[in-house]
């Protein structure tokens, strides 16, 4: 940078002393303006209240989270498993791995869904209001209804197992979502008894 000076040359000792003083004063002034910030390593107090006040609230939130997952899953399955990243954020852990594997299977075999799978008869299995890790906080029994759904191959031939159960019971499990105020599907397993689907 080119500096034009008057009176004192750049190499003048008088100028050097003045510049050093100016820097020192400025530094002191700046430090004086900064207020103490809280230690960023210190954790905020843990929340004293559970995510849901009642079992009914937990059931409703889980049902809603599952509905969101299944709606997007249905779109991807109808599209033959394409653009499966749409499921991101709606499932985690086992549920996400199993979903991605299934979408890849649809793409590899040219499967696609016709119609949609419905779910109903939701029953609360468990709710850990004081969960220590936010995992598997809520569990539900649900009933998947395949009566208005078919899976076809590229030749439009159904690849559904003959004699499959039309209404099948599953248990679904939810973690607390990353946002901290909602649930996200973590696992979906077939349940041994179909009783809840026959009610």
């Amino acid at each position, binding site marked *: 940078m080119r500096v034009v000076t008057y009176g004192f040359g750049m190499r003048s000792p008088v100028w050097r002393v003045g510049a050093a003083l100016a820097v020192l004063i400025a530094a002191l002034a700046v430090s004086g303006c900064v207020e103490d910030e809280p230690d960023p390593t210190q954790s905020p107090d843990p929340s004293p209240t559970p995510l849901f006040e009642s079992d009914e609230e937990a059931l409703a939130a889980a049902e809603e989270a599952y509905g969101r997952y299944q709606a997007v899953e249905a779109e991807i399955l109808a599209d033959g498993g394409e653009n499966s990243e749409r499921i991101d954020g709606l499932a985690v852990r086992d549920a996400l791995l199993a979903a991605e594997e*299934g*979408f890849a299977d649809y793409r590899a075999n040219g499967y696609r*869904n016709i119609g949609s799978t419905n779910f109903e008869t939701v029953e609360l299995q468990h709710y850990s209001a004081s969960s220590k*890790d*936010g995992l598997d906080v809520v569990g539900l029994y649900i009933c998947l209804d*395949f009566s208005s*759904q078919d899976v076809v191959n590229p030749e439009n031939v159904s690849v559904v197992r003959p004699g499959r159960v039309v209404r099948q019971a599953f248990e679904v*499990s939810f973690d607390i979502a990353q946002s901290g105020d909602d649930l996200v599907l973590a696992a979906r397993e077939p349940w*041994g008894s179909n009783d809840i689907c026959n009610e």
Partner: protein
Amino acid sequence: MQRVKIITILGSVSALAILGMVAPSAWAGFPPCTNSEIERGECFTSGSIGGDSIELRGSQSTGGSGGSSAPAPRRERPKFISQMTDQERAEYFAEDKALAESEGRVWREPFWTAPPPGGPTAPVTLADIASFRPVVGTAGMEPNGWMVTGLDTNFFSAAATHVVAGELLGAPAAVRFTPRSFVFDYGDGVSARTAVGGGSWASLGLAEFDPTPTSHVYTTSGTFTIDISVSFGAEYTLDGQTYTAIAGTLSVPAARFTASAGDATTVLVARDCRANPRGPGC
């Protein structure tokens, strides 16, 4: 907003391991069903007995559908609350309680319902009916033990739908086997899969060396080994009335023949009708 620890799968496994919660269970090692298996009806439990003891669970590719039938890769998985024994679950909740109290959080008793009673209401797998052996019946070839090159040799299997009684998941049951397809490996590099088992020329009302749905024409002389196998579909019943299909098919060897093929001159000269009344042209 509640502060939540987000832990990766590996993190949760190790965290649970530290707490001693990862105990071997009936579920350990089962890969989760993919949504592809769920949507195609290939994901099911074959029944559970008692609260949390026996759980037969499988997903299976239907035979003959083509495509990949390799089993899904097995994954380690953290245990879910419903998969724990009562004792494990109590310990798990106790950990929750201890941690909540140490952090000054409100402890709330978890909601837990006993699982609905299980029973073999869902389809079973072929593995479950391993003790039920299908009967393949007799199989035959005409001419018996030899063939004429250039002419049809008739092979057939008499396998038919039948019911085998036995025990399934501790209860009396019956399995009905139905031949879905017949595989004829003619031993000369040619094989055929047919929907019918075929029959003797006489039973089909045909003349000797007539083509049948299961016959084969050998073009070269030599000795050939012919294998016939039957793919059975299976259904089971617990009440003797309602049958439920089981995924997949069961392939069972039915017969093996070793026979020589020669040209017409050779076989006609080598045999005469008095010595071999069933020979060609007799």
